[in-house]
């Protein structure tokens, strides 16, 4: 049983019940200054463990980079 979602523009299947915290742990390489948007809204860090991803969710996992 998997949950089809889009993460950073790419379709992917996550394990059922996967949370934003799980996704961040898998994607961020232990980075602490990360932010997550889900379906166009910010997911506050405090809500990551309690936010389960739903089928069709569009998620952006963002990290700092060089920029003007």
């Amino acid at each position, binding site marked *: 049983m998997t949950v089809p979602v889009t993460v950073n523009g790419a379709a992917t299947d996550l394990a059922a019940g996967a949370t934003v915290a799980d996704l961040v742990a898998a994607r961020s390489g232990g980075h602490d*200054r990360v*932010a997550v*948007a889900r379906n166009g809204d910010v997911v506050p860090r405090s809500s990551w463990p309690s936010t389960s991803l739903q089928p069709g969710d569009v998620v952006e*996992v963002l*990290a700092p980079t*060089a920029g003007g």
Partner: protein
Amino acid sequence: MVKDPLAPHRSQARGGPLQGGLQEAGDPLTIAGETFPSRLLLGTGGVPSLEVLDRAVRASGTALVTVALRRVEASTNGAMLEVLDRCGVRLLPNTAGCRTAREAVLTARLAREAFGTDWVKLEVIGDEHTLLPDAVELLDAAEQLVAEGFTVLAYTTDDPVLGRRLADTGCAAVMPLGSPIGSGLGIRNPHSIALLREAVDVPVVLDAGIGTASDAALAMELGCDAVLLASAVTRARDPERMALAMRQAVEAGRLARTAGRIPRRWHAEASTPMAGLPEL
């Protein structure tokens, strides 16, 4: 404005000679009640390596450095933040790449999550070739972000009227472009920059278009409170050397501005007195 702009440069002795180094001397930049020892803000875009970034940041003397947010796979670089943390600079997240108020507001909220700061360099681009700001979306985003408690430093055109509207909205600083981002064309309309400086009470930061040191000095001579630049340093052949040049240019321009330049004249005015001129 400091009461006696020269005071910080005097030696301990009363009436002593002036000394170089604004940063050591204490002529700080104040934005939203916070002071920064340097009037040079540095962007990190275009930096060729972390070692170069480290050296350039240190040479520039900057205390405020802009960074962006991007998808984690494409650009994750925890090492960059480690370098900047070691340099002791404060991070200023930007909304680079945003084209609508909605995108910019969401990006600012995400940056607040990632960086733990409500300061944001607001950038809303309206044209892909010139990267000029979209005035309508910019003002809309600024209003929303100020209402949400953000400290907004708004990247804008050199239009004094738009600058005033942004300041009236509650932006903490107005950051007009000298010319398009990354163009290195310098300040194309110095008159507009000077008018904008007169039009607002908040700090004015010349942002974008700086190509070389004289451009940064001119910005300060026109009355800008600070200069923000990235490409001019990061894409220079020797970024560390250019960073030092920019630091000194900003300091020289600031000193010249506060020194009060002589008026421009159509004809010469002799500096040597005519009295006592011998008949030969």
